[in-house]
């Protein structure tokens, strides 16, 4: 099982979020556009990361959009579908 802390620290490294610590990222806040403010290029980086680290591949954009909604949604998805 991946913890919230571990996922947050992986994302901080992936997106090069300088000076941000895990405590500052709310579990239920949006990741994209509002909230953390990630953009479409970050979304692609996240897709590549999930494939490389957890063997997760989405069949369409709508599916990934639901999963990318928040840290909690992402964490739940990885814990269900990811190769851990």
């Amino acid at each position, binding site marked *: 099982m991946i913890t919230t802390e571990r996922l947050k620290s992986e994302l901080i490294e992936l997106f090069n979020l300088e000076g941000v610590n895990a405590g500052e990222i709310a579990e239920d806040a949006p990741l994209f556009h509002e909230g953390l403010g990630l*953009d*479409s*290029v970050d979304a*692609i980086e996240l897709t590549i990361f999930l494939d490389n680290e957890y063997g997760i591949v989405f069949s369409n954009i709508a599916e990934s959009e639901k999963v990318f909604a928040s840290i909690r949604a992402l964490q739940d998805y990885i814990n269900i579908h990811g190769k851990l």
Partner: protein
Amino acid sequence: MQKKRVFVNAYESLSCAGNSAELMEAVYAKKSGITIDTSYMPEHKAGLGIFATGEFFASLVAVTQAVLRKSGLDDFKETLLIVGSSVGGIGKSEQIFFKEQSYKNINPKEHAVSVISDTLNGAFGFKESRSISTACTSSTNALMLGQRLINIGAYDNVLVVGADALCYTTVCGFQALGVLSDEKCTPFQKGRKGMNVAEGIAAVLLQDRQTEESVELCGSAGSSDAFHMTNPDPEAGGAISCMQKAIEDAGIEPGDIDYVNAHGTGTPANDTVEALAVSTLLPHNPCMSSTKAITGHTLGASGALEAVIACEVIKRQKIAPQASLQEAENMNVNLPLEAVDQKIRYVLSNSFAFGGNNTALVFGALK
């Protein structure tokens, strides 16, 4: 100061559709030169524009030689060369690195953008040369600067050469961004899938003297979106700004534009924003088409290649149709499905690049 007028007096090009004459035949026949390729990415098909024959640098010299012949000049000794290229010599560096996993045998001078001007200086001996590298507006910006230098009388002759070879970096890079189509691109189409990367070479001679065959380069302008590195401003502010300023620079009104040669890459983002920009600025609804449906997107060469097309459209007084279009996404723009004979006084040619860099050119028929 009094601006000297600028005339396009000779040009030649090479794309996947062939030389300029072959290209225009393909444009009017709506025959795409794109092929579906799996050599760059075996797991992904890619719609690419690939030259039928010829090594890139040899073709570069040949195209420039053709312009010299057409120009009536004895040589290029009194001509400034301005190159527009985004790739330069990356292709050769890639091949060396893939083979050797080391940079040792890469010649930095053959890697850089300046390899294009070095090759041409070696073959022709220009008075002076400069190279512009602003991604997809490279040779459009080169034309803009060339126009300005002739306007102020700094040079009488400027040869603008746009040149970009296919390479793994751009093919795989656009795939990584999710904008490369696995089919022939369909600019302005509802539900379009993306762009086709292509190689291209175009050489355009600008001079301060008018001939019977001249097309005038009347105006140009650039702008920056200041919005995002790769996504265009959805409100089209930057695109509208550069088009408007280019039209003002030409000393004409928006209503004088008879044809728009669009940037029209076939990506969801670009074409939506460009259609909005054109319908907002040019409500008289002039014909518009993207000839990238024929040539693909030749990146840094696209400005010069599409300048050739703009000039040919003016000389032939025949609108280029929008190839590969079934159903337009934006019904407020006029995308002719067939070639149209009509009076064409002014053509607007757009280029939009990474970094939100935008440049527009206005070409005019001789009065």
